[in-house]
């Protein structure tokens, strides 16, 4: 096949890159997609094995993935090897960077939690004066949320909450269990709303770009995918000020290649996109590229309680089970007095069994206590907005390169008092709701994992109307280079307390529609 110039070169095949390919190819643009990972045959890639046949009985090879707490010995090969593609950080400020390199990216493994941001996030500065507003609002993004939710088959219950806009849902009409109703009623007396989890049902085993976006994009005949292509640099023609394509390394051979395109869309995941652009030394006249890295602090089992009626298997049928979502409820009104800005959200479940670590016993006594509590636990996961701060940033570490010779990222990020105070409020408040519901609180944990753990990292190429304080404009288009777009979570201005994937998908779709319009007008 002769080398050709494509209309658009897309870096990355996950939620954002996949949505760009889906949208652009349907508009008739010839797209080339590069992904750093392989095209996995999932039927062959994974084999059933008993834990005792693994070399480390499920503990995992010591030191293999020190920052990927989600990894276990079964799925260790699913994650990016930290030795092959390292990153650096201040040992006093560890960062858990969790990465996947294969077609479909992290959209193969996400928890499918599908929420919209609201104008409490898009216009956050208007509410509390901190940071910047987004250049867009919910109404502008809403039509794209509608389409993304349709494609990913998001289920949910409409509530009419301003802080958690309803979506284009497959209605969740399941009844709540008795324990859920008790908790929701108790929370309501404290002004805390609850709703059903909003979740992408997807199709078959995945709710991923791999099965929901890329097949349709390929069917247009306008998409060419090259896996195992590790992008090294977005190339720039200094004479025209436009990008011309991407240089990449072929995984395996380490051959250096270059692909040409009239426009480049970067959707390589938040920090990989920023790393690629920083290594390319482009699109950073503002000097804010790499800055304002944020995410949500994250802690599972932040409150664990026992539902007394369900002890010893005595709960009536249907009394426990199921889960729900507590959207942000703090700092929604101007006159609220809390010692932190913004807010947090939680998802909760009923009907589990507490972890052995929460019992003071061992041996036979532990087994008896666990048996008594089997299926009788309430548990929740807290996720709170980490404020976007200039000093939380990434840069290129010139002294370290990865297995492909590409300079790695240095990550400087830490949580501050605002996040710690918020997390304490979360566990105290939910603990109180549990007690009101008649549950016995077993443990409250106001601590959380290192930054990065939630895999909700956003920012570092933020959008904005002012080219001096933002990297991208309101269309995810570089202020500096009009044929360059960045469509993933790096474009976020704030993180909110909601899981980011639906917003990433919607932004990417919106940016891609704009790109197609501009290309048609000859404006790129």
């Amino acid at each position, binding site marked *: 096949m002769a080398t050709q110039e494509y209309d658009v070169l897309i870096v990355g095949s996950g939620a954002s890159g996949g949505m760009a390919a889906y949208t652009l190819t349907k508009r008739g643009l010839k797209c080339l997609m590069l992904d750093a990972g392989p095209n996995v045959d999932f039927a062959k890639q994974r084999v059933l094995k008993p834990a005792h046949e693994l070399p480390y009985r499920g503990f995992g090879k*010591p030191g293999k993935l020190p920052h990927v707490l989600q990894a276990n010995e079964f799925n260790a090969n699913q994650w990016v090897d930290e030795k092959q593609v390292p990153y650096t950080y201040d040992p006093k400020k560890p960062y858990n960077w969790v990465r996947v390199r294969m077609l479909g990216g992290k959209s193969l493994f996400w928890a499918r939690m599908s929420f919209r941001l609201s104008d409490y996030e898009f216009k956050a500065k208007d509410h509390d004066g901190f940071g910047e507003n987004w250049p867009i609002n919910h109404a502008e993004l809403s039509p794209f949320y509608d389409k993304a939710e349709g494609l990913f088959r998001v289920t949910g219950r409409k509530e009419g909450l301003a802080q958690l806009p309803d979506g284009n849902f497959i209605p969740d009409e399941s009844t709540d269990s008795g324990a859920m109703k008790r908790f929701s009623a108790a929370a309501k007396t404290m002004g805390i709303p609850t709703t059903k989890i909003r979740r992408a049902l997807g199709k078959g085993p995945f709710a991923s770009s791999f099965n929901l976006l890329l097949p349709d994009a390929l069917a247009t005949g306008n998409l060419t995918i090259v896996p195992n292509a590790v992008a090294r640099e977005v190339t720039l023609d200094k004479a025209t000020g436009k990008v011309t394509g991407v240089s990449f390394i072929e995984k395996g051979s380490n051959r250096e290649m270059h692909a040409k395109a009239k426009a480049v869309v970067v959707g390589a995941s938040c920090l990989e996109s920023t790393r690629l652009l920083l290594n390319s030394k482009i699109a950073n006249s503002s000097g804010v590229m790499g800055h304002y890295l944020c995410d949500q602090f994250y802690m599972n089992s932040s409150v664990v309680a026992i539902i007394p009626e369900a002890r010893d298997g005595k709960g009536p049928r249907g009394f426990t089970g199921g889960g729900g979502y507590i959207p942000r409820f703090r700092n929604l009104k101007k006159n609220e007095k809390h010692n932190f800005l913004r807010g947090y959200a939680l998802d909760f479940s009923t009907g589990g069994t507490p972890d052995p670590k929460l019992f003071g016993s061992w041996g036979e006594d532990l087994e008896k206590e666990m048996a008594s509590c089997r299926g009788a636990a309430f548990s929740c996961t807290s996720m709170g907005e980490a404020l976007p701060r200039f000093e939380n940033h990434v840069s290129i570490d010139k002294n370290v390169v990865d297995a492909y010779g590409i300079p790695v990222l240095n990550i400087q990020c830490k949580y501050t008092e605002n996040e710690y105070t918020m997390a304490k409020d979360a566990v105290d408040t939910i603990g109180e709701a549990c007690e009101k519901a008649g549950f016995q609180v077993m443990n409250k944990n106001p601590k959380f994992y290192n930054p990065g753990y939630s895999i909700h990292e956003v920012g570092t190429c933020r959008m904005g109307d002012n080219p001096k304080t933002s990297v991208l404009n309101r269309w995810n288009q570089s202020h500096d280079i009009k044929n360059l777009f960045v469509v993933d979570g790096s474009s976020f201005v704030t993180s909110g307390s909601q899981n980011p994937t639906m917003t990433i998908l919607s932004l990417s779709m919106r940016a891609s529609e704009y790109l197609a319009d501009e290309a048609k007008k000859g404006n790129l």
Partner: protein
Amino acid sequence: MKRRRFVQALAAAPAVPVLLAQQVAPPATTQQPAVNPQMVPGGTRGGFGSMEDLQKLDVVSPDDAASMVQRFCTVDQFAALQKLSDTMMPPMKGMPGALEAKAPEFLDFLLGHSLADRQQIYKLGLDALNAQSRKSFSKTFAKLDASQITELLTPPLKRPWTYDPPADPLERFLRAFKADVRTATTNSKEYSVAAAANGAGAGGGGRRGGGLGLYWNSLD
């Protein structure tokens, strides 16, 4: 066959058998078998007979024929590790306990390959366990009776669990060990075999019961 078609046929054939055919074309002069069975995927190729006809050889795992050599712990530390393993995971409900599951031997192996921080938690913890036993009962932990063990373990383990590891080396070790010995036991072959026979045990089936999991092969 026309040359063009012959070239196409060559290109279509899997690379490995073609290479092998070239290697074994001259008379075999080495003592190695001419064909490595693993390199010819299924069926007949080049007239070597069907691989399916080969008799399967019975083999066993090293654990069925030998014992793990202790590498990490000192004699005193290992004796304490064994006693503590048996205390925390005794045989229950017809399921093997930590000793039958060779959990102490496995953990000794795991520690030998672990990073320094985990090694340190165990070293300091096991030494503290023995020191505390000597102080309170004038003997090592391995020699304590059940009530003495309860007296020693209750205070550190009754304190509420916290996310940040406890400052006290003994408490820190006990908390790590309580989780580790459970995993090492329920993920053992012995536990898996018993779980299959009994239906379920502590932790039930699934991954934690030594059951099956989907293992990801290397992406390279």
